[in-house]
């Protein structure tokens, strides 16, 4: 069997790049938040220091095998989803396995990690973790609906469920799906706010009331792996949205610009927002975003 070296390099390099970009974005968010609050803020590499520190913790505790494997589930979901997304359009290095999966697969792959984390958090026996999980799963039912509506609208508009084909459609600036199907974009981006778990949808990890919720019993290497996974996963979600709505990126700088701009939407919303209760955020997602998503489908059906 002939080894395709460019794809091997891609497989090794993609998670590393995703991690670095995700970590730096995380640091940038803290910096931006600080500037908005009229603070100086931590250095942009702060999240990297945090992760290295967590890995260099000398001791760790676990309540059982499920907690031990919880972060492993999370990182598996993040990296696997990453491999099935074309990170850079038409590049031989960063396609990975994107031809072997499609959008519905990604939709399910992305909840794999949440489920694993929920199981891990469940075994700790900490009531706060269980409350956090209960809130997180409930909220997921909220934002998945507008997200799926947006995806279905796009799928039936372009008669494909493959990300690569969606990228091929958006060959020119004017053909980006954000312009071809703006309603789907609006529904998708509102769901995206919930997916990123920034305020006002951060009731899951409310640190002051439920002691950071699901991860409250995780420390040291476990928390380190979770933060690594979280950084990669943030990047995955950003690239997915860029690929779906913003025509992907054919080089690295475009990717950074597009993902960063996209990232600013939930971040800047989050900085100035208070927090929704769980049922409020569920009902929020089931009202306007869902309505817009349905409208998007109706528009597509009428046009097509």
């Amino acid at each position, binding site marked *: 069997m002939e080894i395709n070296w460019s794809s091997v390099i891609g497989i090794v390099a993609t998670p590393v790049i995703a991690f670095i970009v995700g970590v730096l974005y995380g640091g940038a968010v803290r910096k931006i938040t600080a500037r908005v609050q009229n603070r100086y803020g931590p250095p942009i590499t702060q999240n990297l220091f945090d992760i290295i520190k967590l890995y260099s913790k000398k001791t760790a505790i676990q309540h059982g095998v499920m907690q031990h494997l919880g972060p492993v589930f999370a990182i598996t979901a993040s*990296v*696997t989803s990453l491999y099935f997304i074309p990170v850079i359009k038409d590049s031989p290095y960063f396609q990975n396995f994107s031809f072997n999966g499609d959008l519905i697969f990604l939709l*399910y792959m992305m909840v794999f990690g949440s489920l694993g984390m*929920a*199981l891990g958090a469940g075994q700790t026996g900490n009531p706060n973790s269980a409350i956090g999980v209960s809130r997180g799963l409930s909220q997921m039912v909220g934002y998945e609906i507008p997200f799926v509506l947006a995806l279905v609208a796009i799928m039936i508009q372009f008669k494909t469920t493959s990300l690569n084909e969606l990228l091929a459609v958006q060959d020119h600036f004017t053909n980006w799906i954000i312009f071809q199907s703006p309603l789907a974009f609006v529904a998708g981006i509102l769901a995206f706010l919930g997916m990123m778990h920034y305020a006002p949808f951060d009731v899951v990890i409310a640190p002051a009331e439920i002691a950071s919720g699901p991860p409250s019993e995780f420390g040291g290497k476990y928390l380190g792996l979770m933060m690594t996974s979280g950084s990669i996963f943030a990047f995955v979600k950003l690239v997915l949205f860029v690929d779906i709505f913003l025509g992907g990126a054919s080089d690295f700088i475009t990717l950074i610009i597009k993902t960063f701009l996209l990232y600013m939407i939930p971040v800047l919303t989050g900085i100035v927002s208070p927090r929704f209760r769980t049922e409020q955020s569920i009902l929020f997602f089931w009202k306007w975003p869902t309505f817009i998503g349905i409208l998007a489908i109706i528009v597509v059906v009428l046009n097509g």
Partner: protein
Amino acid sequence: MVSLTTLYEITFGGAILAFIAQHTIKQLRTFIVIVTSALGVYIVWRLPSQATDISFRLGDFQILWGVNEYSQLFALLIAVLGFFTLIYSIDFMKERERLGYFYMNFLIVIGGMYGIVYSQDLISLFFFWEIMTWSSFMLVIYCCDDAQSIGLKYFVFSAIGAYAMLTAIVLIWANLETTSLSVLFENFTNLSSGLQITVIVLFIVGFGVKSAMMPFHVWAPDAYAISPTPFTALFSGALSKMGIWGLGIVLLKLAAQSGFYVWVQDIVAWIGAITALLATFYAIVQTDAKKLLAYSSIGQLGYIIVGLAIGTPLSIMSALFLAMLHGIFKAMLFMSAGAVFYRTGSTDMNEVTGLIRKMPWTFLTALFGIITVAGVPPLGGFAAKWMLYEATIQSGHYFLVIVLFAASTAAFLYLYRFIFSLFLGQEEKEYADIKEAPLTMTVPMVIMALFTLVVGVFPGIFINPIGNAMGYFGNYTFNWDVSSLLNEWGNHVDMMTVVMTIGAIFIIAAIFITIKNYRTTRYVTTKDIHTSGEIPTENENLTYAVDFYKPFERAIAPVLKRSIDKTYNLIAENLESAFDFLRYVYTGNGQTYALYVVLFLAVLMVFAELIFGIQL
């Protein structure tokens, strides 16, 4: 010596022998039961290559039994599930009483189901259908206090279904003078369109009752919850599939020929989707694990109905795939709930907690079960869900797919609740001495759990036989790779790559996190948690189980309020009064029943003469 008659003789004979053995030599009973079901598996396995059709006349009716690929699919499911559940029941039922009664009815149910799927004419179909219904009714009322009223509910709904089916058979006989299925399929279009739709609706009601379709699902949660767990596994796994088997024939063989097909398709598909969504919502608010699984079962059957109703090759494939898989994973889940019940004596999710370290294999089964139900890769459920969504989107049911997605996402809630409450969470002192369930219970569960993984990696081992079975409905070809899934737009998922990727990353990460600081990683008990420095005493309750999804319940309160509090109570009250009325009807006096039969036949004859102009 492999033929249909042998199969029936062995199964029904085994049932009677088991009953006799219980009253003479008890040690033989288990042996007879296991051998009978094992022989059943063997015969069903060998049937397609060796059996010939059996045909004989019974009065005016031509009785016809035969084997086809579609029946074979369901027969294998019945045989395997029957075998596993019977092995499971050895230890589970050990301490119970009236075991002869239990095992006899159990084997009769299995025999009845064989009869249903192998019958090629409506008379034997109805005959075996009634055998199955009656013996399953016997098992529903096997135990516990409310068994009588729940059994009555089950019986009433089964009777509605059976009468609907009987009426349809009579209508067919009256107009086509045939009971053979194949003749019916050929001549169905000769019926007037009014009759066509009547027959279809009656059959849908008849089969829909067993597959717990939304208006007729009322019996299911209670009946599933109250029947003994080994039977519940078969009940939900295989017996409900008889309804699916029938719906498949009605929708794809009969309705597909009529002019109303599009309407029937849409209506049934929407009923299925709403069944899935509402059952999921009800499952979320349950507190009893078996009841939760029962509602989950109704929801999953809703998906299968949607798949059958849509009627594109991919959707039929997904429906049958899910039907087979549902048989396995729901049996797994019921079995793990049963194992918990066996050890702790309760399946109340507000009480039982923290069994993971005590019952690791049961937990593993439950874990595989919930991952399969959730449809998360890499287990088998993903393939089924994927095909269903693709088929739904591509056949233009855009809003249907949203309802399905909503139900599927909401399903995470109750699945997590199930596994969290029973196995995760605080390890309470009360359950400190619980041991793992005995081998006869864990082995079947774990085998099935591993099977879901195999199906996840190689969906082809299901897809190919189902593809063959779909030959029964028309000429569908599936030239797929053994590990890939393909939709009609040409997009595909390669399960092999998926599983290898997931496996590789999972193993690397697991090794990393295990080796890192291996010596200084300590196990601590679940009492040693962050409680703001407070040291919890042994009897302090730190379990978060009651009202687990209160926020979600608040969000869907309008739905629950409208359906449960008002309509549902209204229906329940009306049913209650209906039962009161039934108490007058079903007097318990044999002579009254005989009178009913005579009256029924008389009415039938009058109707047959007046309306359809035929002499019975």
